[in-house]
């Protein structure tokens, strides 16, 4: 009895709370490692700023992006309008600021839905094995056989009438995005299933769901958590590409992808800034998440070191 309890209390990579002893767990070790890297600090600052912009755009601009006056069309940047005006005379700085929200919201929500769905399905497959695993693995194969962007294009093309919300986008990204997380957790659960601490928990009479989510999950979640920032970046990229194709939010809403798409003809008409400004904001988001994600993955996955 006392044996099983000690095994249960100190699983190999459990999150160790910062206690009096100086032994650090995986998470706090990763955190200490990350805190020292300048790349991580810069990217986190950019990401926090973008999230703040997305949450409270009115803090950054007093203008309304929909207040367009045709007589100011293509107005040059000035102290009053930092990025000038577009072809309809809309304040381009205000549009860029308000354009952050769809990108960030889709990135965060799509990551949450795909990872939660993937984690639940993957852990069920890995934990129970047998025919459950066979059915789920085949299902994953089927979803993977449809190229991600083509699948998302199809869903959004047929759900187009749904209107001015982010939900069709998130639905499309989730339907074809959940398989990645599911495969990773399935692997971790298969590995963990036979370990002593799991057998110990079971022999103490813990229910399946308790073993899965209280015992195995905290130990198996590092590989999937390490992919979160990379996934957010990738979904922001996907959202921009789909908006660029005209499959994202509908016109009254402003997104970076649609701003880029609408202003492609203006590049040769002498107004390249209308394309470059939203492109730079979009790149600052995707590159920050990619660099942060790379550092987080390194810190949480000691095998790569």
């Amino acid at each position, binding site marked *: 009895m006392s044996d099983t309890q000690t095994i249960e209390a100190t699983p190999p990579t459990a999150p160790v709370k910062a206690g009096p002893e100086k032994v650090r767990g995986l998470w706090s070790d990763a955190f200490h490692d990350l805190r020292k890297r300048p790349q991580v600090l810069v990217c986190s600052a950019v990401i926090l700023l973008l999230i703040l912009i997305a949450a409270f755009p009115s803090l950054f601009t007093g203008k309304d992006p929909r207040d367009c006056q045709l007589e100011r069309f293509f107005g040059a940047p000035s102290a009053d309008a930092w990025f000038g005006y577009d072809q309809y005379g809309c304040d381009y700085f205000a549009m860029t600021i308000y354009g952050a929200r769809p990108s960030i919201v889709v990135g965060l929500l799509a990551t949450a839905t795909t990872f939660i769905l993937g984690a639940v399905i993957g852990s069920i497959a890995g934990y129970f094995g047998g025919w459950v695993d066979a059915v789920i693995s085949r299902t994953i194969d*089927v979803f993977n*056989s449809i190229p991600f962007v*083509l699948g998302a294009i199809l*869903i959004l093309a*047929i759900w187009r009438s749904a209107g001015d919300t982010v939900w069709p986008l998130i639905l499309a990204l989730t339907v074809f995005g959940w398989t990645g997380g599911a495969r990773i957790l399935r692997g971790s659960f298969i590995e963990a299933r036979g370990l002593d601490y799991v057998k110990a928990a079971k022999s103490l009479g813990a229910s399946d769901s308790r073993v899965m989510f209280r015992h195995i999950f905290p130990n198996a979640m590092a590989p999937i958590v390490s992919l979160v920032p990379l996934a957010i970046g990738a979904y922001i990229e996907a959202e*921009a590409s789909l908006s*660029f194709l005209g499959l994202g939010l509908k016109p009254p809403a402003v997104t970076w992808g649609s701003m880029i798409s609408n202003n*492609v003809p203006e590049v040769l008409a002498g107004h390249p800034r209308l394309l470059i400004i939203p492109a730079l904001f979009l790149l600052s988001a995707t590159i920050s*998440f990619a660099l942060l994600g790379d550092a987080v993955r390194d810190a949480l996955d000691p095998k790569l070191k």
Partner: protein
Amino acid sequence: MGRYVIRRLLQAVLTIFLALFLLHYLTSLSIQINGNPAYAFFGGQITPTQEQLRVVAERYHTDHPCLKRVGDPCLSNFMDTLGRYANGDFGQDLRFRPVSDQVVMRVPNTLRVFAINIATWAIAGIGLGMLAAVRREKFSDYLIRAGTIISGAVPTFLFVLALKYLAGVWIGGWLRDHLGDDNVLSIIFRPSWDEAHPWLTVILPGIALAVIGTAGITRLMRTSMLENIRSDHVRTAKAKGLTGGRVLLAHTLRNSLIPVVTLIGLSLGGALGGAVITEGLWNIRGVGQFVFNAVRQNDTPIVVGVVSLVVICYLLFSLLIDLLYAVLDPRIRYE
């Protein structure tokens, strides 16, 4: 071997069947929830008569009663669709032209784009990965690593646009002024595809499409090389007194290529999505541009037909790769 081939064939048939069912179910569900898609045919301005609606619904097979019951998998409808696919009928666009004819006409150009794309992956991905592994922990390794992270985070459409304006308009304009319009370089650096030079004008967009995949391939190549450099057979080769070049190319590189070739195969699916944007922006008359234009013109039947067709081709292609693997690499054993 024979048993493996049969098993893999059966599995491929089942996967194609289920993937088509998934596409069918998503389409049916959207019709069940959003209502009659026949209205899209007439656009927002015209209010069609009942008779017109009926004709369109018949044409596009949207008149089935099960399409009014939300959640119904519409199995009989699905069987009809499969029967039509088996006869090569992937529907018609809104001008009643068969989708399959258009796709067949456009396939050669898409294959050109993919040829350049795969060549870029092979040359840039394998070359840079090798360089990074050989110069491990040195400046060029860090530079390549940072480069792959950043270039992997640039959306394909931005890369294509940047290349179109920087290389096609700016550099290309200078070349055309100084070397004349018919110089090979001037043709390569044109900002859009030209039917008269189908290969030369596809080089730049092919490279732009390859950028995202190159990042992953470079990283895998580096890891794979590093694993092999430390392995016993490479140490033996060095101990035998072989030259550095031979150890690197014949003993390390060849073994490192196995996972990389697998990744190249897997990345093709992702590149299919990128091809929609690349071909659309570079005016390449390929399958991707077909989808791109259909999306812009709200021509949903094309999107459904082409995506189904592409998924079938993609699955047949992966089947072929898997079978080739079994023939080429005798170490691969299947339970």
